[in-house]
């Protein structure tokens, strides 16, 4: 098996929804914001492996392009707590599968809940985001 690089995009999945898997092996490293999709779409699930951290981590998602986001200042549209030492998965659905984002999708992670704070999780947190 080849080494997993920090960012991977697998697209499209062979299903009728044309989903894409976005993977970051250290989401939020250095306070960075990932641009996941630069146009409207649908968010299906977020899966996070926080097993290397003894404290909770917080995934921040914005319905904005990454260049419109200031991590620690721009209010996230979604915040997901990831419990210490475990993996958590969050499945979104609306009238159909998934929940829509109207502009774009960007993501980061922090050791702080809420909007403020740019400190990354102490150790890397692997995050997979399924969208179309």
């Amino acid at each position, binding site marked *: 098996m080849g080494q997993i690089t920090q960012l991977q995009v697998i697209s499209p999945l062979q299903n009728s929804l044309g989903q894409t898997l976005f993977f970051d092996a250290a989401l939020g490293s250095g306070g960075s914001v990932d641009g996941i999709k630069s146009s409207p779409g649908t968010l299906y699930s977020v899966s996070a492996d926080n097993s290397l951290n003894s404290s*909770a981590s917080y995934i921040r998602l914005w319905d904005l392009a990454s260049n419109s986001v200031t991590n620690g200042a*721009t209010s996230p549209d979604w*915040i997901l707590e990831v419990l210490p030492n475990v*993996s*958590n998965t969050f*499945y979104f659905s609306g009238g159909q599968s998934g929940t*829509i984002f109207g502009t774009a999708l960007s993501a980061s992670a922090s050791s702080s809940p809420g909007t403020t704070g740019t400190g990354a999780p102490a150790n890397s947190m692997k995050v997979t985001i399924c969208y179309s």
Partner: protein
Amino acid sequence: MSISSISDSSPVGLVLYTDSALGNSLSRVKTSSAVLFYITANNVANPTTPVFLKLFDALAANVVLGTTAPFFVWKIPGGSVSNLVLTTGVSAGFTFLTALTAACVLTGGSEGSANPPQNPVSVLFSYV
């Protein structure tokens, strides 16, 4: 708001807690540790306005909406019914260690306390 709480007679002891108009008054979903399985939020009454559901792992007495950082924020598009299912490892549910407190406003992130949804947003929490 109108609160209903139904305790399921299943072995799991599931509770279905519904707030028919969750807004900027904190809803005390559970005042002790909880395992949350899923949430269903109905924002159909606000057809063009998204709302933001905020969850706190804290007692309501320790939450100042608009100031206290929420552990979860969930944008619910206007005119939609949205569901969120939570799992931990291979098991269903997500543990709130202290309590489960919720509110719904028009602003994401930590901000927003003065502006509740214009029309009612009904939210169902399934937990033990």
